[in-house]
């Protein structure tokens, strides 16, 4: 991080803390919304480790998010302490991701997207049938035991607990992307064949990244279980996989904080629209389409875009006349 970046980081941290203090005063509804925002920030960032950093186009991350959520929900019934339950959620999700990664490591590109999508769907339909996981109704009344450092039955305590977990996980992900491994991932993203001829075993790195991202998604799912207290099969549905990808694109892939920004905007937008209209999907679709067509590099690219527009030059490089 450069010197200017450090000031930005400090300013960002101050703003986040200030907001975190303010939210509990806005009422329980707002608390639930902003808990969801924090969780989606983590989920979108974990997905972007794959999309933006490694160019692994997974469309099945809901499987790991949902696995984390169900793990916590099931363990809460046996009164596991929250940290242990969350650790288990991460482990289960990461293990599932590892196996999925191994199975799918032979396919790349569009085929990979389709395959991960379908594998996610296997889990979804399986859980729909499963009595242990509560079938279509899912598991409700997920609650942490009322003891320990945090009394998570208190909404404000839960809020701080979720924020803390998300913050720690975000730091860990930041750590990973700036490590030597993170550099290797970006190299693979740019040109896998080139990377192979530097002696990097591309497939193994893809599986590793997939496992790490899966674990982080599992944590997000586990926190979601505590936040909403209900885990239904819908958390595993494929639209749940599309949503963090949407957030990453809207915020800006190829940057660390872009997806987080996208998560804040989209989650908040969904909340507002959900209250205003029954056909909120239409408006979400329009917003997403606008980003896909007009701002494909996301919110983080907007200042740059404006600068270039102001500079009188065209915002995007002119496409070659015809390239069939």
């Amino acid at each position, binding site marked *: 991080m450069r010197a200017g970046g450090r000031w930005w980081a400090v300013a960002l941290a101050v703003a986040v803390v200030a907001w975190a203090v303010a939210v509990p005063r806005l009422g329980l509804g707002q608390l639930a919304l902003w808990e969801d925002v924090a969780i989606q920030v983590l989920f979108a960032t974990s997905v972007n480790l794959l*999309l933006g950093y490694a*160019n692994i*186009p997974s*469309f099945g991350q809901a499987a790991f998010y949902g696995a984390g959520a169900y793990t916590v929900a099931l363990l809460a019934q046996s009164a596991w302490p929250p940290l242990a339950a969350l650790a288990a959620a991460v482990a289960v999700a990461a293990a599932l991701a590892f196996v999925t990664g191994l*199975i*799918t490591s*032979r*396919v*790349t*590109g*569009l*085929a990979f*997207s*389709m*395959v991960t*999508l*379908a*594998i996610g*769907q*296997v889990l979804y*339909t*399986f859980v*729909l*049938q499963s009595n242990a996981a509560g079938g279509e109704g899912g598991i409700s009344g997920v609650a942490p035991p009322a003891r320990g450092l945090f009394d998570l039955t208190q909404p404000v305590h839960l809020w701080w607990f979720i924020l803390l977990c998300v913050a720690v996980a975000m730091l860990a992900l930041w750590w990973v992307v700036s490590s030597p491994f993170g550099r290797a991932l970006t190299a693979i993203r740019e*040109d*896998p*064949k080139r990377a192979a001829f530097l002696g990097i075993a591309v497939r193994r790195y893809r599986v590793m990244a997939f496992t790490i991202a899966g674990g982080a998604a599992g944590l997000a799912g586990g926190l979601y279980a505590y936040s909403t207290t209900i885990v239904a099969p819908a958390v595993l*549905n*494929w*639209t749940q996989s*599309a949503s963090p*990808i*949407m957030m990453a*694109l809207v915020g800006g*892939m190829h940057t660390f904080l872009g997806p987080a920004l996208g998560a804040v905007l989209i989650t908040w937008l969904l909340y507002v629209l959900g209250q205003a209209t*029954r*056909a*909120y*999907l*239409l*408006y*979400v*679709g*329009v917003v*997403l*389409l606008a980003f*896909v*067509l007009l701002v*494909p590099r996301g919110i983080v690219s907007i200042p740059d875009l404006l600068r270039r527009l102001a500079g009188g030059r065209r915002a995007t490089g002119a*496409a070659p006349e015809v390239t*069939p």
Partner: protein
Amino acid sequence: MAGIDAILVPLLSGLSEGVVLFLVASGLTLVLGVMRIANFAHGGYFMLGAYFAYTLLRGQLVGVLPFVAAVLGAAALTGAAGYLSELLLFERFYRMPRMQMLLGTYALLLILEGIAQQAWGLFPITQPEPMGFIAGLTVGGTQVPYYEFFLILVGLVAVVGLEYLLRRTAFGRQVRAVAEDRLMGSLLGIDVGRVYALMLALGVALAGLGGALTAPTVGLIPDIAVQFVIQAFAVVIIGGFGSVTGSLVAALLVGVMTSFLVSFAPSVASFSLYLLMALVLLLRPQGIMGRPWEEEER
């Protein structure tokens, strides 16, 4: 004969369900094979076809001929909607990086579903089967609805029609040429943009046809758009990307397999499709009829 109907009845019902699956999957796989785009919005067009059929018939009980006319009309309307969206949107999608392209079609899916929510509401509506099709042929003591035979017939016509179009006509030759080598196609004077627009219209019309034929058998809700497209994708993966014949085999296999499982092992039935897909992926990643899928890393 108690034995025959235990086999024949689930077989017929499986085949008829497989036909609908085939119609939707063949449209998807054609678009994938020719334009190299995975169209999430495909399910949206399936849903539109179903609602169009409902709207054309106003949900009334009608005879066979008006029903057939309405189904064809719904497919044509859906195809027209597809043609329009190709000109407005897909033409831009083709040039995008993969994720952006996928999200573009996903946005379109959300928009189509949202439009349906506005236009037809969130609650299930029903379109009865055509008069005379509710009854059926008695097979060894069990009634098989005529509607199932009708669906199988439609599937047969669709297979022969598609095969004829792609193998025997000048347009089909252009489609195959462009699918294999887009650049060479345009060097030979083929208007690739026009072929693409027509192919999307055709693919989407097939989804619309599938939707219209499904309308009498389900409670119509906008959410079928999201649910059905994934099943169609699974069939495409099992059959092999871009292969119409593969989709046919896979769709019929899935239909019949699910139908038998519903009778014998109901708990496995609903996700057997995805299990089969996982199995195919492990043993033969390119699908039953597919060639190894080569794609540029982007």
